[in-house]
């Protein structure tokens, strides 16, 4: 037993990821944590998307289930689980069953290498970014399977559209990723890295986020990726695969209940995954903002308060809304619920002020905050843009982003060469 305890506690002093240290126990813990974290993220995202989109569109959004609809995702999940599971008679059973799981598997496996902090990743592969791109490209298989197995026209067309779209945007995406990887080799030793943690550490060493590196090359590469990742995840304005005015619901038209919710989970998981790639490659991963402009221990100290302050602010927003709740007995439970939620948030915020906690948590906080910013962008796009037509989408991928990506790649290499020479 003591040996087991030592095995567990032995990792705590390690400066490697659990996968890197070969510690199975902590690897499993991290897997559970990441899985739970992503699921909670999807739940939050569900609520936030409906709320933010509603407020953009002068509506209120969910208001009935829980205070300000906070429990709406749970109600939805319950409803989806209780719904009848309809499988079309002519569907290809095995493929129809397995398609949602493959999409989910692809979306969640990607998080194995996502670095939430220098040691906060399940493992650190030395082909990390390659692995991420590869596995996230597998989700297209699930989509094609779902569309084909439904044995129906709309899903098939939707699946064909989305696979064509994902395959073509992968090219531009890959090129922009390569230009970022090229930037990792602009150090003293001249060796780059494909490891996700290594990429962020290079940004730390070079004292520059890659988005600002070789201005504007890094910015353009980031822009290409930011466009391609929206197309990769089939979100507005590239949601051709599920354009409801044309294809009902695209590849998941025939899915209902639990299976549909798996697609939903995968979509949001994939959004987070590609956002994490963007954050890792260009926005400095877990690094706090302005690492070189506002350097020094004082600033480190100030920035370490941010997670706590953020949660306290969320709690304050809750209390503000508690004060605004109608003073009617009908709303009493909702008011109390919101107040309790605010208290919980504020308590979390206070806990985050403890130095021992804040040191461990702030990497994760900055990473999640950056990913959350991308999530907000996704919602914003959806509220703002009309939908592309399919030929325009293809033209955009092949004739705009691809040459742009190639140009950025060549220029990055050239500028890097000049820098090494000088």
């Amino acid at each position, binding site marked *: 037993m003591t040996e087991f305890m030592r095995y567990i506690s032995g990792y705590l002093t390690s400066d490697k990821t659990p996968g890197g240290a070969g510690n199975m126990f902590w690897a499993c813990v991290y897997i559970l944590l990441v899985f739970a974290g992503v699921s909670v993220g999807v739940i939050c995202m569900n609520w936030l998307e409906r709320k933010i989109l509603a407020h*953009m*569109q*002068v*509506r209120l959004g969910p208001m009935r289930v829980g205070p300000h609809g906070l429990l709406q995702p749970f109600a939805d999940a319950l409803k989806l689980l209780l719904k009848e599971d309809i499988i079309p008679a002519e569907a290809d059973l095995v493929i129809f069953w397995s398609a949602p799981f493959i999409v989910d598997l692809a979306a969640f496996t990607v998080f194995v290498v996502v670095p939430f902090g220098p040691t906060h990743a399940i493992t650190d592969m030395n082909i990390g970014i390659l692995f991420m791109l590869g596995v996230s490209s597998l989700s297209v298989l699930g989509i094609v399977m779902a569309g084909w197995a439904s044995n129906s026209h709309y899903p098939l067309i939707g699946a064909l559209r989305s696979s064509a779209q994902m395959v073509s945007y992968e090219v531009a995406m890959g090129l922009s990723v390569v230009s970022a990887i090229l930037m990792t080799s602009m150090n003293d030793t001249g060796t780059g890295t494909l490891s996700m943690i290594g990429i962020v550490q290079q940004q730390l060493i070079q004292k520059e986020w890659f988005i600002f590196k070789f201005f504007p090359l890094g910015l353009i590469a980031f822009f290409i990726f930011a466009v391609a990742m929206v197309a990769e995840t089939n979100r*507005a*304005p590239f*949601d051709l695969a599920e*354009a*409801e*005015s*044309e294809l009902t619901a695209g590849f998941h038209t025939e899915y209902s209940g639990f299976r549909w919710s798996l697609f939903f989970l995968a979509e949001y998981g994939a959004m987070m995954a590609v956002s994490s790639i963007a954050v890792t490659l260009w926005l400095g991963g877990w690094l706090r903002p302005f690492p070189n402009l506002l350097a020094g221990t004082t600033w480190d100290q100030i920035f370490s308060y941010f997670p706590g302050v953020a949660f306290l602010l969320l709690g304050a927003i809750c209390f503000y809304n508690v004060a605004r709740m109608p003073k009617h007995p009908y709303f009493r439970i909702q008011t109390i619920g919101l107040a309790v939620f605010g208290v919980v948030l504020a308590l979390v915020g206070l806990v985050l002020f403890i130095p021992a906690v804040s040191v461990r948590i702030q990497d994760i906080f900055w990473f999640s905050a950056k990913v959350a910013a991308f999530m907000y962008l996704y919602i914003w796009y*959806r*509220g*703002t*843009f*009309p*939908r*592309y*037509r*399919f*030929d*325009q989408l293809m033209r955009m991928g092949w004739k705009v982003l691809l040459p742009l990506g190639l140009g950025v790649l060549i220029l990055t290499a050239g500028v890097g060469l000049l820098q090494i020479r000088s």
Partner: protein
Amino acid sequence: MTDPRSLSPPSLETHVAVRDDTFLDTNELVINMGPQHPATHGVLRVILTELNRIASHQLWLGTHALDIGAITPLFYTFRDREEILKIYEKYCGARLTTHAFRIGGLQYETYNGFEKEVKNFLNFFRPKIGEYEELLTTNRIWLERTRNVGKISGEDCIALGVTGPVLRASGVKWDIRKAQPYANYKNFDFEIPTGQNGDTYDRYLVRMEEMRQSVRIIEQAVDAIPEGPIMAKVPKVMKPAVGEVYHSIEAPKGELGYFIVSDGSTQPYRVRVRPPSFVNLQALDLMCRGQLVADVIAVIGTLDIVLGEVDR
């Protein structure tokens, strides 16, 4: 997502209101009562129909943008349309079937503060057009989806009998409000917006401009509501002269005409409606030639049809 216009009752409302208007106009001509109209009636009719035009264009904009994938304008337009409907509701008690027009004038007096509320609405609405345009007019994706999509030339429009904003966007300056002024339109100052290319984008711009022009007309009309009766003296039993008559007005979607044949009895011998949606829909074939399937959605949206009017 189904096109809401094909399902939801509010879409019919604009039509019913305007249709009442024309039908009565035509009837009036048949029984030759036109000149006896009280002046108030004409001005009020302009206000009400122009409000209707705005409401119709708002509905069109929201659903058209929704079809092309922009979900937000729908909520903006419905928010603002609600203000118009409130005025209507207060005026005649109905939001859906505004039924104030009668032979000889209007049934209802305006309520207290009608002018003020209409003016309030105008002040409220004027910046909102800019809001819609901000979302769409210079949006690259909107431009790509609508420019050079569903092109139709002015000649083709005329050959097919297409009227309304579709015709005007193709460069033909034809508006019955100017060409054969009815009600009090000749007293008001407004422009007929026209486009050059006759594509979906031009039709969008024309309708946006028409909303502005409607605001301009209502502005003038609200200040010019004369005192006096709203209804002329109408005999209990009307016996029109034997003959036939066609009268049309510029409905929001195009020319809406009624053809009535009278045999001298109290009932019309024959009534035929010339609906704008039915006729405009004919252009769909021509406009979709050589385009992609996804463009059909944009083209159907830009024609601004109400299927209840087409399927008769």
